């Protein structure tokens, strides 16, 4: 007898695995579409939830970037001794400016005067607008912008001129500089309107007038209620430590120092909490999609008994049959995953476009979502594939 070469089954090349695995799908496009749809919806939901959340976070981070985290605000602290003077010293701005690293300073002082559109406005209709005296380049330090008009300067600050925060302007019905508003008993000319000032929301609801003019006109005592300073990024911590003691050497504890950017950062962190619920919903959709794929695969195995029998007769091992059906399942859910990623990214783009957010779809979400579909495809295809491999080749060929 001739010595026979060892009977070793050959491995299918990756391309052949892919080809045999996709053969069953190519013949049934509608079924592929429907069963991939479940996966697609699940993945799309998850990508959209993550994408929309990431987009709004990205907007906040952009804002933080633009606004910087090197702004510190000093204000009057709280005293445990009744009657103690907690006001910031009059020369706070000048002293703060001398701290190494401090680049710009500005301050506001609260005034107790109502602001009205005109004398015809009922006195109780204060609209919640505060009057503040301002010194220094407040919009510059806060990185706010003037929407219209000019900021207070040495010249116009001596006269009854006022700059309105954008909320205040809206509430007073002032659309553009040039009009007049009534403060106390004097009409002030609106010379500028500020844009949004995310780092100092109270400024948005204020009418701002010149420091000296406020002292002259309303008897303002010159104590700042809020002192803003902007330092170099490297010196923020040093300045933060030094600020209280420098402004008020006797009672540094009476100076409350805060970083307005902290609030924005906290907001960015809070965005994530809400998305978990929606992610869970997406997960459920994905699971249902996976069950759909498993169902389709089981039907596919039942229908293709002849093909399985033929392949066994042609020399396919059980393992090769298993791989064929797992590949088919993987392709099915992978297609759904791809469609889902595209759909989710598109949904995020639509939402971001409508809400004016930057369009962000985190790569980890795309990879994670796609990875999840591959896991689901494997799990869903495993049982049908094992069933297919266990089919007796004679039985598979005989049900003709």
């Amino acid at each position: 007898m001739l010595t026979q070469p060892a009977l070793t089954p050959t491995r299918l090349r990756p391309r052949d695995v892919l080809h045999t695995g996709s053969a069953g799908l190519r013949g049934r496009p509608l079924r592929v579409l429907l069963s991939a749809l479940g996966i697609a919806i699940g993945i799309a939901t998850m990508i959209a939830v993550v994408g929309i959340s990431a987009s709004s976070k990205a907007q906040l981070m952009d804002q933080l970037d633009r606004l910087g985290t090197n702004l510190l605000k000093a204000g009057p602290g709280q005293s445990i001794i009744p009657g103690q003077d907690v006001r910031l010293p009059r020369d706070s701005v000048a002293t703060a400016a001398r701290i190494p690293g401090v680049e710009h300073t500005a301050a506001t002082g609260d005034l107790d005067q109502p602001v009205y559109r005109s004398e015809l406005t009922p006195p109780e209709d204060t609209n919640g607008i505060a009057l503040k005296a301002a010194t220094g380049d407040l919009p510059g330090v806060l990185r706010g912008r003037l929407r219209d008009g000019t900021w207070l300067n040495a010249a116009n600050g001596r006269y009854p001129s006022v700059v309105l925060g954008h909320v205040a302007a809206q509430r007073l019905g002032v659309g553009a500089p040039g009009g007049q508003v009534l403060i106390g008993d004097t009409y002030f000319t609106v010379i500028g309107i500020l844009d949004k000032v995310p780092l100092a929301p109270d400024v948005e609801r204020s009418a701002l007038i010149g420091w000296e003019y406020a002292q002259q006109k309303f008897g303002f005592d010159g104590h700042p209620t809020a002192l803003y300073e902007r330092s170099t990024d490297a010196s923020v911590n040093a300045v933060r430590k030094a600020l209280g003691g420098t402004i008020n050497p006797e009672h540094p504890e009476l100076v409350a120092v805060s970083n307005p950017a902290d609030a924005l950062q906290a907001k960015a962190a809070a965005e994530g909490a809400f998305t978990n619920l929606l992610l869970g919903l997406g997960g459920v959709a994905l699971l249902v999609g996976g069950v759909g794929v498993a169902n389709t695969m089981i039907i596919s195995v039942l229908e293709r008994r002849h093909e399985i029998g033929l392949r066994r007769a042609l020399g396919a091992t059980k393992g090769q049959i298993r791989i064929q059906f797992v590949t088919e399942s993987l392709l099915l859910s992978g297609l759904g995953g791809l469609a889902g990623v595209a759909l989710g990214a598109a949904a995020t783009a639509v939402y971001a476009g409508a809400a004016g957010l930057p369009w962000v779809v985190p790569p980890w979400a795309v990879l994670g979502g796609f990875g999840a579909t591959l896991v689901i495809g494997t799990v869903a295809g495993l049982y049908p594939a094992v069933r297919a491999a266990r089919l007796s080749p004679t039985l598979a060929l005989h049900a003709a």
Partner: protein
Amino acid sequence: MSTYGTSAPAVPDSGADRPRGGPDTVVELRGVTKEYPGGVQALAGIDLSIERGELLAIVGPSGSGKSTLLHIVGTLDRPTSGAVNLAGHDVAALTDRRLSALRAQHIGFVFQAFHLAPGATARDNVADGLLYTGRSRTVRRRMAAEALERVGLADRMDHRPHQLSGGQKQRVAIARAVVGAPDLLLADEPTGALDTASGEAVMRLLHDLNADGATIAVITHDTEIADSLPRQVRIRDGRVVADTASPAGTADAQGGVPAC
């Protein structure tokens, strides 16, 4: 008949005078039985050997066990007892994986229902016959083209099964079975689903392939087809009741009806 002959098994063996298991023996069955769960005995002790280059019919009515015999010779199923040797390999000693490799390398199947992939071209269907042999796609497709030419379908390479007649489909299936030049071609009722003319064409093709050296076993219930082949192995109730001599056999090969 000599006394030696009478002591031989009741079923004459055409290869009795040649060394068994020689290099030219493609199939050798010794005392093969097959019992299905529930006690149904499909094969009740079969001895059969097929030499290289033979063209034979395994013929019997339905229920005779010829399909079971086909499965066992084709290694799609294992016998309950007895020995099966195929192309020099003892089937009982092979794992399922190795049996698959044996089918991939040594056996070609032709079925009554063709079993062609509906979405694939004739050429790709034939190339699938080599899918599990480790050849690259390019080689498979080249060999498929050659095989299609050989069965006379060179002009139908890119046709899909629904664009082919029944006879053409079966020729595609035959091309798929012979594309890897197997040691044994098993054809299960190859003309069963065809009209007379197509059936005759298919049988002519099998004769031609045999003339080129292929070893072919045709399983059929049709005695007319069986009689057109050089050797007939008649099966009834799970036994070989007649085995005519193979022309490939030696000059003094026995033939005719069994002694019993």
